[in-house]
């Protein structure tokens, strides 16, 4: 009892300022994150076309529709393929690049850093439009160059599989630089004495990478790993929207794009909301798994 009153007292006297100062950001969070989230849950139980003034309550029908639709599984499958490809392109490859540029190369480091980071400045919409032209399978420059060697470019934008790969490439063009710079900074921060000692002992480069660099930069590594997954969901949206609109026959759609498609193209807000909630649940589970199994092995400097 006395502890409680003490707590209340402390809250009154000491903490109110802190809470007060937190209030603006809390307000923003509430408006732009919590409220939309609650509203999405609410909408997922209704049939509504976004224009009509009445919403019809349908219970779990939206969820049932989604779970019984084979299209949904295709789209979730695509979502994971995107993530897998982007993990390679945007997490593994930049890791290796950062290592090579920091520890192996002797010259032109500044140039590489600048050149690789450059695309991060350019809007992904602009990038997507550029790539639509560059990779136009009939008349784009890449198709012309391949033509010199007698190769024909697949019409990727209309082929299952290819379309996901190319859209991932376009996305990674944008995201690569940022991930690379972050990893580079982390690897750069590893004590040089350790590396020099290993080199004196004739430890091969691949072992330096796997046994020294990787564990010592793992805190940043896990950060890049997670934002790659998040970006795999979100950034891919732009090239999908600009280039394929989810086609051909949903072969390039992912969960986020499809939620958009349902809500703002077909105006089925209930379906869209239910799909968003399901997507969130899946990723919540993935996050819990990550916390339970991966987080333990991470080395935090401080």
């Amino acid at each position, binding site marked *: 009892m006395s502890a409680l009153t003490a707590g209340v007292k402390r809250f009154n006297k000491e903490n109110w300022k802190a809470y007060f100062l937190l209030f603006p950001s809390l307000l923003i969070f509430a408006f732009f994150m919590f409220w939309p989230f609650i509203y999405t849950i609410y909408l997922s139980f209704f049939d509504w076309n976004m224009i009509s003034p009445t919403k019809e309550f349908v219970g779990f029908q939206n969820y049932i529709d989604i779970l019984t639709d084979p299209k949904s599984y295709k789209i979730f499958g695509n979502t994971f393929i995107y993530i897998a490809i982007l993990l390679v392109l945007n997490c593994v490859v930049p890791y290796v690049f950062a290592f090579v540029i920091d520890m192996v190369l002797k010259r032109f480091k500044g140039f590489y850093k600048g050149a690789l980071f450059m695309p991060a400045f350019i809007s992904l919409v602009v990038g997507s439009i550029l790539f639509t*032209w560059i990779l136009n399978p009939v008349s784009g420059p890449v198709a012309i160059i391949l033509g010199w060697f007698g190769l024909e470019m697949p019409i990727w934008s209309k082929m299952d599989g290819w379309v996901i790969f190319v859209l991932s490439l376009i996305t990674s063009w944008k995201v690569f630089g940022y991930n690379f710079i972050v990893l580079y900074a982390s690897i750069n921060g590893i004590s040089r004495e350790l590396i020099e000692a290993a080199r004196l002992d004739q430890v091969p480069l691949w072992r330096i990478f796997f046994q020294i660099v990787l564990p010592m930069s793992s805190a940043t590594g896990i950060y890049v790993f997670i934002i790659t997954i998040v970006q795999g969901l979100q950034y891919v949206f732009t090239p999908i929207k600009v280039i394929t609109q989810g086609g051909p026959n949903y072969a390039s759609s992912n969960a986020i794009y499809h939620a958009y498609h349902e809500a703002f193209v077909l105006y089925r807000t209930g379906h869209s909301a239910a799909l968003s909630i399901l997507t969130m649940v899946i990723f919540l589970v993935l996050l819990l798994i990550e916390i339970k199994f991966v987080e333990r092995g991470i080395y935090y400097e401080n």
Partner: protein
Amino acid sequence: MKKLVILFTFVTLLLAVSACGKKEEATTNTTSNESGKTVIEYWHVNAETQGGKTVDELVKEFNAQSETTEVIAKFNPDMYKGLMQNLQAEAAAGKAPAIIQVGWSFLNYFANNFEYSSPQAIIDQYFPEDKTFLEDYFLSNVLALAQGPDGEQIGIPYSLSTPVLYINRDLLKEAGLDENGPKTWEEVKEFSKTIKEQTGKFGVYIQQPADNWATQALLESNGAKMITDGKATFASEEGIKAYQLWADMVLEDQSAPNLPWDQGIQSFIDGNVAMLYTTIAQRSNVQSNSQFDVAAIKSPAWEGKSPKLPAGGAMLAITAKDEEQKKAGWEFMKFLYSIESVAKWTEGTGYVPPRKDVAEAENGLKDFLAENEMMNAAIEQMDGVVPWTSFPGDAGLQAEQLLLDVRDQILGGSISVEDGLKATEQQINKLLQ
């Protein structure tokens, strides 16, 4: 510290109050201004690059010459859907603009959910001198675009586009073909095959955006009907035959590329595809970027049949509530449909003029058409214009989407035309029930 807190609270309050104040101001001054003119709102969807400048120009011109009315143009982002949403919000607040643009696909939704006045009713009531304005200046099939299912005139067609066939004359000549292009779809197929064989380039690209506009033109021109009595009927013999021709060109002859819309247009512009079937609204893009002898010809027909071309674009509807506003609305609309205004609208947007007598008139498009010959193809085929089918009811958009899905499947070769169309037709009819 305390001072800071007070300051913060004060600023927050001030912001809230001033926001409210602004809102109130906006609601009160819509009926008349200082000089006693009736003030009306005109809602449009034309962004700066899509004719927005022309809208402003026309409104300015109108306001300068009108003694009774002042028009305020309001741009609505996100095209016709955005405008519908804003109209919904406005209606919920008990207000309405006077004149709005309604996209064809929203025609039924608009008529079922909003208050409007038929233009003819307003004319009859207040402007007997304009009694025959509509019949005199519009083709009956064009007027029919803006009619509801029961034949009531809901609005007046304003922005019109139709599909045309752009041709690369240089490539046609190179392949030894008639440089005036094909007249029928059967010829399109032959031409394409010859072009593929002679030049190695693709023959034709038929547009594949996220709608079924061109598909409807192809199928209905062959005598199929997208909808009969509220049911999907496109999988008829004629429909399947028409679709088969497209699929054959893509899959069998490989003379038509299966590309998204923008890549298709690009490939025509840089000379890798000899013919392009797409909207007249792409004219200025094609015209200014093509490096070869380019022309636009009328939509091909099917052998022995006359083409039926869905209209893209929008109509103008009167949503004004009180008498003064309605009168002012018609005054402005009449101005917009004058030869000069329509000519400006066509030049600024690339749409086909909705009314007669504009193409030949000196104060109309005579000079413009002399310079932009490609526009003629679209103007000449106005007698073949039919409404753009929108599937009825809430499931309409889903039905539309199913047709897009099957297009990908058919042209991707994963399903035959007959199976695909029949299955889709069944699915759609199930949805529409």
